[in-house]
């Protein structure tokens, strides 16, 4: 198993039981041997949903709280295509869908970008003889992938124009047959009905029937449109409405059981107009393709024959099929969707730039630059600017038998052999921090490793200006801070209750760990994925003081200590230290 580098994850406080509407019950586990029941188990399957690397977390300055992607409110600043970088107005999203409607497509085979290329029509043999090749202009175009050389001609699709590919493609089925899009069909119907009267309706039905040629050929979009049209016309039919409502009028409403028996579908709550209950009930069923009724074609023998003649690579992988948008332009494909020839170029999904607000106080905590081309933010309150970062390093102390070998990054941990890790906490804020750590004496799970935090409580100096720091340094040159710098770390013994080293705005402490043995006893199940990773849950509480009146108050010279406001923040984090050697 590959070794791993130490890491830190933070659990957003929003993910405790309170998230389901019940009150929070995060009793303070700050005492080093915290209540077993309240110890956060990083191995529980649910833990993975609430743990984030520090870089993924934001922070609300007003609520003094961490905000994760699950506890943030989002607004859309811009919609754009990641390929052509064109901004899309929000009104288009509803009508045109969530993909670029220009000419931006991804390859259905390898998701590389497709480009429009003209197809060189081979010149008629006669022109070879004639000196001028003028007779053969580039007349058709195809989409080509420059990575895997896929071409839309492989699915029988060519375009007349090099632009507006999306619109052209919507009218083409694989193989090149043309189809009416929903829009065109709607327009045609409108046209016909403008001519007026019964005849028009009949004509419209005829159009629908013609284009569906018996039903087998009706594509999904058409079937849905036909169903919709049918239902709407049924509901609009005055005789239907009469029957539906009047017959129910007295009997129905005074006798809820019979009503609900009939209109079982509509047993909705108070959100709904009670008269809606009779809506579908007043409809007859669809009887033909132009009303949305389609018979199945269960005869797939020709497809089986095709599969029989196909190579494995003539079929699409599940990944390829999953990245296909729904193909509304074909009849129900069922098993036919497996063939490469059923794949379609994939229009790029649009993307958004989002502003983020604190859901509690409504303050904006992240706001991107409006311009699509830039990835910068105008406002971005990342949690890393407010809560201390923790970095982890393995510490090699001299053993009883002389100096230890230098620790190699990612070395496997020996079971049952004490090992020391150096945790360095770095304070990002301009006030000094009081840090209190709590960790269970043994890690949760089947293989408990022993954990001792040698110094669970300490202060970190403020993240002052570097110049201030230089000045202060002169004053405190002789303090404990510098003593570690004198020699290599292996010259020092770890001391309980003492920090290891201190710097301008950071403090290192030592954690001693005795990794568990991973030996399986008889009858025990094999190791689960990552069960050999030594992870320790640690409860971090930070406290600091700010000027009364909030962070915005200007700090006057005559400030009083009594006016300071105490703040605190507490959260669980998980320290991944390394893998334990197996066997």
């Amino acid at each position: 198993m590959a070794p791993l580098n130490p890491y830190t994850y933070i659990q957003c406080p929003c993910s405790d039981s309170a998230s389901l509407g019940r009150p929070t019950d995060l009793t303070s586990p700050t005492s080093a041997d915290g209540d077993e029941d309240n110890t956060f188990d990083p191995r529980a399957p649910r833990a993975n949903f609430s743990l984030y690397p520090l870089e993924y977390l934001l922070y609300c300055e007003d609520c003094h709280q961490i905000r994760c992607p699950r506890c943030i409110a989002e607004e859309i600043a811009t919609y754009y295509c990641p390929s052509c970088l064109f901004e899309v107005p929000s009104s288009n999203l509803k009508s045109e869908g969530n993909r670029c409607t220009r000419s931006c497509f991804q390859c259905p085979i390898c998701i590389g970008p497709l480009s429009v290329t003209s197809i060189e029509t081979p010149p008629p043999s006669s022109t070879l003889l004639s000196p001028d090749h003028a007779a053969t202009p580039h007349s058709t175009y195809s989409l080509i992938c420059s990575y895997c050389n896929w071409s839309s001609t492989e699915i029988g699709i060519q375009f007349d124009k090099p632009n507006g590919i999306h619109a052209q493609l919507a009218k083409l089925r694989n193989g090149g047959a043309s189809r009416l899009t929903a829009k065109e069909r709607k327009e045609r119907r409108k046209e016909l009905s403008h001519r007026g009267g019964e005849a028009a309706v009949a004509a419209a039905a005829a159009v629908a029937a013609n284009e569906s040629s018996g039903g087998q050929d009706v594509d999904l979009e058409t079937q849905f449109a036909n169903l919709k049209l049918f239902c709407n016309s049924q509901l609009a039919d005055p005789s239907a409405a009469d029957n539906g409502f009047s017959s129910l009028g007295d009997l129905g409403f005074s006798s809820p059981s019979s009503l609900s028996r009939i209109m079982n579908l509509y047993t909705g709550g108070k959100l709904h107009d009670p008269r809606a209950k009779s809506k579908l009930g007043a409809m007859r069923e669809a009887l033909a393709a132009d009303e949305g009724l389609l018979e199945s074609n269960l005869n797939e023998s020709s497809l089986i024959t095709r599969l029989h003649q196909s190579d494995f690579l003539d079929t699409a992988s599940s990944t390829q099929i999953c990245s296909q948008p729904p193909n509304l332009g074909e009849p129900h494909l069922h098993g036919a969707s497996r063939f490469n020839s059923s794949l379609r170029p994939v229009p790029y999904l649009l993307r958004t730039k989002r502003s983020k607000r604190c859901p509690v106080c409504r303050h904006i905590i992240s706001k991107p630059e409006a311009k699509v081309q830039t990835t910068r933010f105008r406002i971005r309150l990342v949690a890393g600017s407010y809560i201390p970062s923790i970095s982890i390093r393995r510490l090699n102390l001299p053993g009883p038998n002389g100096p230890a070998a230098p620790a190699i990054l990612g070395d496997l941990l020996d079971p049952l052999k004490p090992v020391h890790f150096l945790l360095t906490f770095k304070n990002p804020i301009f006030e000094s921090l009081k840090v209190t750590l709590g960790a269970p004496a043994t890690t949760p799970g089947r293989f408990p490793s022993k954990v001792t935090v040698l110094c669970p409580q300490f202060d970190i100096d403020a993240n002052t200006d570097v110049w201030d720091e230089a000045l202060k340094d002169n004053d405190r040159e002789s303090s404990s801070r510098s003593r570690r710098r004198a020699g290599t770390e292996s010259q020092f013994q770890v001391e309980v209750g003492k920090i290891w080293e201190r710097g301008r705005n950071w403090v290192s402490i030592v954690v001693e760990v005795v990794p568990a043995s991973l030996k399986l006893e008889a009858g025990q199940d094999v190791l689960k994925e990552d069960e050999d990773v030594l992870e320790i849950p640690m409860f971090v509480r930070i406290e600091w003081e700010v000027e009364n009146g909030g962070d915005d108050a200007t700090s006057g010279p005559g400030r009083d200590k009594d006016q300071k406001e105490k703040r605190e923040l507490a959260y669980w984090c998980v320290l991944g230290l390394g893998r334990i050697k197996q066997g």
Partner: protein
Amino acid sequence: MSGLSSGTAAGTTPLPHRSVANIRSPHTSGNTNPSTPSSSSRPIPSSTFGSPSSLRADEDILILELGTRKLQIGFAGDACPRGTVWFTPSQLRRVGDFRDWSSESKSNVDWKTKKVTGEKWWSRDHELWEYDVREVDLGLIGDKVDRALREALTKYMLIDSRPRRMVGVLPSGLPLPMLSAVLDSLFSRFQPPAISLLSSPVALTVGAGVRSSLIVDLGWRETVVTSVYEFREVSTNRSVRGGRLLVEQTHKLLAKHLPENQKKKANDNAGETEDYELSFDECNDITTRMVWCKPHLSSPKAPKSSDGLPTLHEQDESGVAPVESSTDTSKTVRIPLLSCRSPTTIELPWEALAEPSENTFFDSQYTESSFDDHELPLPLLVYRSLLQLPLDVRALCMSRIIFTGGCTNVLGLRGRIFGEVSKLVEERGWDGVQGKGADQMRANPKLKGKRGSRPANSGPSGVDSPSEGASGQEQDGVWHDAANTAHDECPVEEQLKRGQDKRPRVQGKMRAIESVGAWSGASLIAHLKAAPVSTVEREAWLQYGAVGASKPSEVDQKSARQSFGPGGLMRGSAASNSWTLGVWGMN
């Protein structure tokens, strides 16, 4: 057709616009949380959402379909969902954990997971629901839904986080605790003012343009046959034969053809647990690409009938011809494999690729009596589902068979099931087996004779028009007889039916039809503003949870008596001030 913007029915009080400011953030829930002493006293501003968009969020209704392996979401009124998110093991990882798994470790994980949990199936991490009650972690289900929906909203829906009404499309057999977990997660994380619930069989029925149907859901975990009558689910039958078993069978087949040196070292305790040679993903992939199903006539039970029974007609003839002519046993297929010890390519006979579906769905080498109820071969499952229905319901349902689910992609499978069911109907009629249907038959010998002698005449593609010929009359007879004898139908319903249905319905013969799908059916229902099975409002849910729901039976005693079986009949509340969980509230 433009009705999207008017998602709430006329006459309905529009919901007050709910701003995200009303989110009950856990951090502000009081002084129980020691970490935020200052935030608890902070007043929550009541300002509305300052969004640049003028679109009112509660005008978009989100349709959310939750299946065993995927979530689909889109706007009500659209023809298809805008996005699909699959439940995968990588979704269970921590954010920022981008470790890429080599195929080798992938298959390790697969079978390790399987062993550790004692679960028979290696595919658990690919599924949302956990039907094993001992193992179930409801919070985890909520988390999975939360993460998948968040991904879908961000990647496909491209909408902000203002609360929107939702319509949930769910399998009707979903146990109540799991439905609760889903609602908990949706209400607490996404703040919809209300969630309406629709069962997928009903949505599928609407999506096919009919009012009654037999839904054959060839699903992942199981195959479920549901009969829907007048938009009500009247019975449900299940068999474990589904996609998961198919992938398992495919693995077996591929492992059998692996060269010896590619096989993993047999474990010490190999006796107890069967090791997997290949990864789940790879077997799943090969199943969707290469597995097919033999047509009906090649089944051993049906020797090629020279007696000219016009049973399976053109479908089988054409189905057999190309396959048989090409089933030169010499034809082999080469399949590249990556997740075995080292990448290799195996070669196996084309015919063998039909074995997995044969074993999974049919198992025709065993006798009928050797199957438990929950493992019936699919033709038998469908036949028995029809058999147990009252005559009139059956007559309608058998002519409105809707195949749905992932395994409809197995080439030839739908035709094979349809063919075998037709044959069973032809051989046995609707008699000979115990059951309600049979009882009714016996009570009316005239019908029995009629039905028994009736040829199962029409094929899937050659359907007679309902108005034409003898079969129409005959069925008419059946229909009226049934209506007279077996029913306590209320006069209103009768009146309604007569009033509307002037054109005769196709009934009494086997016919399969296509539905636009459960998601699209639900989209249509929401578009038509027809009320769903049940609507749960956020406030009520947060206050009471599932306990607050009226038992459908309490609300509607009368229809409870008409249930065809426990949990079968869909009912709901008609009283406006109580709400139910529809079918889900009854188990």
